[in-house]
């Protein structure tokens, strides 16, 4: 069987292959380690990490929807110090990249997080979560206002030498505006998309299904929207893109690569099938062989317009 090259470079970040697992859907890796060979992954984007531990939002905070789910977890996490002390040593055993997703309520919190993680052994990149829809303050605010996006990225850029990924919110009128703002601020890579704000109502009880009323929609329901945004942003900026949003299998992942993503992140699908990330990796390799491609980089952004069909 012919070997295809799967290594990708996202700016200064090297990945052994383009398959990542999205933040918030893979914990700190240890939760999956007996079911998934972590050494085979391109990288793990760890759970959203804040300066201090967070308990998260009240229950109920997750609801299944049509081909998707809404979550309002509220960044429940152990905090950056416990992450470095308790979670990172486990991750250092593996050769996949470790990308820490950081989230702050203020410019200063983002700066402190970046500074704290800079130079820490085993941390290969930062992903700035400026797009979480489930926080009362901060979070999405930074991601929907281009000026705030530019400023928060600029400040973090000054505090770290790590490759800087900025995760964009889809909850904007034109995502390319925020993409350019993030690049202007110093982003090496963009990841998109985070979840779409939505809600769910129980008609029987006449109540919202989430205690927080709104949550972030993810899963296969959002794939066409995410795919379009990846394609849009790929036309607008020069930096590499990590595409995500409803990737459930290798074909979905290939579509994101064709749309212009240099790597992909599997999210909600990890809940459905713990081994899906490896299946996606193997499926991309198989696709490349079938297409006669020798390097995954060769297919990035190669989608073409369809031919007009016959009219009925």
């Amino acid at each position, binding site marked *: 069987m012919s070997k295809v090259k799967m290594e990708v470079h996202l700016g200064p970040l090297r990945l052994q292959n383009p398959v990542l697992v999205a933040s918030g859907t893979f914990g700190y890796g240890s*939760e999956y380690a*007996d079911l998934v060979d972590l050494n085979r992954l391109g990288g793990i984007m760890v759970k959203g990490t804040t300066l201090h531990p967070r308990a998260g939002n*009240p*229950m109920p*905070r*997750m609801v*299944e929807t049509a081909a998707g789910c809404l*979550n309002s*977890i509220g960044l429940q996490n152990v905090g950056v110090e416990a992450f470095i002390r308790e979670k990172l040593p486990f991750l250092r055993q593996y050769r996949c990249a470790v990308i820490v997703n950081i989230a702050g309520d203020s410019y200063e919190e983002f700066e402190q997080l970046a500074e704290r993680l800079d130079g820490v052994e085993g941390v290969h990149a930062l992903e700035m979560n400026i797009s979480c829809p489930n926080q009362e303050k901060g979070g999405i605010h930074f991601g929907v206002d281009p000026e705030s996006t530019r400023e928060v990225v600029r400040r973090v850029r000054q505090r770290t030498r790590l490759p800087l990924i900025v995760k964009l919110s889809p909850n904007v009128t034109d995502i390319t505006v925020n993409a350019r703002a993030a690049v202007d601020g110093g982003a090496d890579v963009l990841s998109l998309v985070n979840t779409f704000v939505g809600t769910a109502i129980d008609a029987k009880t006449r109540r919202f299904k989430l205690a927080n009323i709104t949550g972030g929609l993810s899963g296969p329901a959002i794939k066409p929207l995410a795919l379009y945004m990846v394609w849009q942003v790929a036309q607008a900026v020069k930096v590499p893109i990590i595409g995500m949003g409803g990737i459930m299998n290798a074909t979905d992942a290939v579509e994101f690569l064709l749309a212009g993503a240099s790597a992909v992140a599997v999210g909600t699908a990890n809940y459905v099938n713990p081994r899906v990330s490896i299946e996606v990796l193997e499926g991309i390799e198989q696709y490349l062989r079938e297409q006669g491609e020798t390097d995954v980089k060769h297919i990035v952004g190669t989608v073409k317009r369809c031919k007009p069909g016959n009219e009925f």
Partner: protein
Amino acid sequence: MRCAEHCEVVANRPVATNQFEIEIHCPTVALHAQPGQFVQMRVQSGYEPLFSRPFSVFRRFPDRGNFSVVYLARGTFTRMLAGKKPGETVFVVGPLGNRFSVRQPANEMLHVLVAGGVGAPPLYLLAEEMVQLGIPRHRIVVVNGARRQDLLVCQEHFAELGVHLWAVTEDGSLGERGKVTDVLKSLYQRGELPHDRCQVYACGPTAMLEAVAQFAQKHALPCQVSMETLMPCGLGVCLGCAVKVRTAEGADYKRACVDGPIFDATEVVWG
């Protein structure tokens, strides 16, 4: 030891009105599942419904590598599960979660297993283990409750174990009329639940668990409850199954799928 794999359905038989026992070939779960643990199952190839569903393990057949769960076919997912025929496959992740803890297995200890509806199966596995551990059958009390007789689960299995068995139905169609807590109150009033030599284990709807927990707390009876929530991942990652618990600092969230599903009843913040 746990697995995530497609497993063959061996049997899928009706056991009561709209209730089925599905037997699945999965040596890992058959060998390693403990009382109170569960598996995540997925039966569909499409995205409706999207998530797997958790089911407590009912019986284990390690010699032939099978395990079974009992389920009520009432929603989209469980109706699809009811349509699974022998030879077809389901996707199984498990065994998952913690287990009921059998504390102080002294001869004088009284073990009170309180089941509500389809909460009975994991308690059956617990009762079976207790018998295998040599706990005298008369020291194992099962209070098995449901709204009606035809919704009572595992009654004949408990009976076959020879444990001290109470049936209780809200409409009085079988056994005592009322709720499981009515039987507990009656036992307590007769002096049959000594607080210093009694352990309560409960599994069933949340409202029942809360009532049992309140009863246990009132009479200082140690009580373990199996919490039922939506568990999208079952692996402690999505944090969608959080249970509010008391801590020294106030309250916090624990994950039902990995910190539970079994919790000390006094730890849970109810309501």
